[in-house]
């Protein structure tokens, strides 16, 4: 029996059944993105609060568009002009938003655990859109959807995650999600960003510090952005990073011939990834963006729509469309 989600705070606490359910629910929404009229009435009358306490472009637009295409209204808090700048606490800010009676809240915050903190105090579903260096669960879900589409299944695949793992919420969410499906995960990057202790996060996880070893036999290469804004360690010279870890066409040839290249964005071309790889045939970067919409529609529908797991899918039931 599928355990309904009350929040989405991370992938760590999800069961493989819950993950598979969301991925399956996202499939018709993927198809739906190609429709000329991209609007459902499924969540008509519902409101989703977008509380992005940390600046975001793609994730914020993706969530907002997902809500709009489900027919929901959104209300947005702007990080830069928010009352936080005037000294209001996170708790007071979200309680103020909640008092406007939204049906769910999507939160991004620079502090790890902020969505967890909020979820313990609010009555409405909370969706983590990225918290500090903790988790970014919808990114991992859209990555999983992209891998499943391209590779048929997750089980038994070799996924290499390349970059600053220590400070990456994308990496953590992917590690927790992929390990539930028996994926063999290799983490690689400069040693101070990829400590050996990371191997204790999940089963089937290995830490490797030589990029050639990490790429050997990989079915999927996930390249992370070098997050200069989140790094407490002494910075590494960009040339040093490029020489050691940039994903170049030559290095990609060490992976499986049809290896899929993913990147959560935004890409810093010429730093963590060569443009020829980012734009090449093996790149799934733009698919990831489209899949993000499908995943977020599936999630908002599940969390806010409150339909039973076996209810007809709204994107298949076109009588539901508002056009």
């Amino acid at each position: 029996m599928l355990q309904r989600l009350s929040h989405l705070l991370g992938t760590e606490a999800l069961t493989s059944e819950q993950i598979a359910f969301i991925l399956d629910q996202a499939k018709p929404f993927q198809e739906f993105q190609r429709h000329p009229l991209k609007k459902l009435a499924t969540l008509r009358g519902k409101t989703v609060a977008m509380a992005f306490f940390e600046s975001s472009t793609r994730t914020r637009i993706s969530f907002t568009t997902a809500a709009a295409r489900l027919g929901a209204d959104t209300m947005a808090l702007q990080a830069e002009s928010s009352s936080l700048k005037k000294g209001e606490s996170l708790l007071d800010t979200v309680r103020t938003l909640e008092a406007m009676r939204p049906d769910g809240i999507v939160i991004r915050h620079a502090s790890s655990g902020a969505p967890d903190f909020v979820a313990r105090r609010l009555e409405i579903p909370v969706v983590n859109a990225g918290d500090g260096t903790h988790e970014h669960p919808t990114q991992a879900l859209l990555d999983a959807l992209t891998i499943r589409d391209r590779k048929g299944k997750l089980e038994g695949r070799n996924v290499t995650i390349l970059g600053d793992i220590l400070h990456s919420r994308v990496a953590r969410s992917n590690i927790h999600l992929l390990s539930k499906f028996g994926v063999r995960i290799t983490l690689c990057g400069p040693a101070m960003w990829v400590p050996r202790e990371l191997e204790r996060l999940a089963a089937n996880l290995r830490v490797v510090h030589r990029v050639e070893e990490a790429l050997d036999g990989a079915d999927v290469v996930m390249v992370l952005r070098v997050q200069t804004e989140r790094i407490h360690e002494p910075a590494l010279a960009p040339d040093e990073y490029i020489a050691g870890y940039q994903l170049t066409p030559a290095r990609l040839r060490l992976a499986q011939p049809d290896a899929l290249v993913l990147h959560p964005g935004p890409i810093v071309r010429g730093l963590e990834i060569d443009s020829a790889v980012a734009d090449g045939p093996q790149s799934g970067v733009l698919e990831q963006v489209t899949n993000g919409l499908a995943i977020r529609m599936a999630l908002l529908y599940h969390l806010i729509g409150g339909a039973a797991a076996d209810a007809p899918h709204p994107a298949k039931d076109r009588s539901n469309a508002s056009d």
Partner: protein
Amino acid sequence: MLLIKNGRVIDPASKTDAALDILLDGDRISKTGTDLQASGAEVFDAKGLVVAPGFIDLHCHLREPGQEMSETIETGTQSAARGGFTAVCCMPNTQPVNDNASVTRSIVERAAAAGAVRVWPIGAASMGSRGEALAEISAMKGAGIVAVSDDGKPVATARLMRQVMEYCTPLGLPVIDHCEDPSLFAGGVMREGPQSLKLGLQGIPAQSESICVGRDVEVALLTGARLHIAHMSTVGSLEYVRIAKKTKLCVTCEVTPHHFTLTDEDVCYDSHYKMNPPLASRSDRDALIAGLADGSVDAIATDHAPHHAASKDVEFDRAPFGIIGFETALALGLNELVHTGKLSLMRLVELFTTGPARVLAMERKIAAGEAADLTIFSTDHEWTYRASGSPSKSQNTPFEGRSFRGAPMATIVAGRVAFCRSM
């Protein structure tokens, strides 16, 4: 006069563990013995209870002057009395910092007027605890400080530590250090390890503490001064203290109840699990318990650190460090150390009495002529801790709702009953 009858007297100084009566006259112990009678004396029946010398807490924050929203000398000492403490040493990181005699005097006067238990202030080691010039240590000594510390942060450099130690030695004051290496601490919010990696919280390596303990032990070797390591939390620090004790240095240390009870595995995004030093690993915790048992650790100190709810009810990384601790200290000691068979009851009492007294070069015993400071507790009274029932102004505790066996039943300070638990 107050006659305490039928109690089980545990007095570590004389290694006494016997059924004895104690007669208090004014603020002094008048006599001890069996079947004592005193006409006109008020009688406290301590049948089934332990009667111990008054507990001393070497490390607390009473927040007055300057942060009275979180605690005052009045409310903090009332909470201390409920925890069985008859004397508490308050750290100097108030606003203003207790770095001169006028602040010390104001604390002493306030404690005399409103304190439920004795308050022994600790003075800052450096002016404003800024790690530059020495504080007015000699004048503060005249006003009543019992030690110096820049608690909240370490004494900034080895050179300053040397000067503070040299200056304090003829004054007879121990130097208490909050040991951490700022460059390794680096904005961390919990102990570095598998749990910090999972939670995505900036980790503080154990060596942040032990490097500083190592430095301090070296400077103690240079100066021969009395050094006390505050809230020690790692096995590495403990090893430095053991080496120092073997070389006959006057180096002592304290461990908090939360560090012998909880570990970093307990940390979640609830800021009641955020304290400095952070909750350590399981192996550190087990080593601390071994140190408490074998005498390497001298005292249990609470590091009672009240913070009002609004300041703690925030994102984990933005919350201040610290938890309250007076009222759970003895119960945690009994439940985690004595009832589990890891420490004898005598040893636990020592860690609350003669141990901390020795750090301050004082004595603590039950004998005629001694101060009438006594802690009376039960080893089997069952109760559930609720911070809302505390006189403290703050409720920042990870032990809310925890059930205990054993509790302070009465606290007697200078012959007066400062606290008595209603049964």
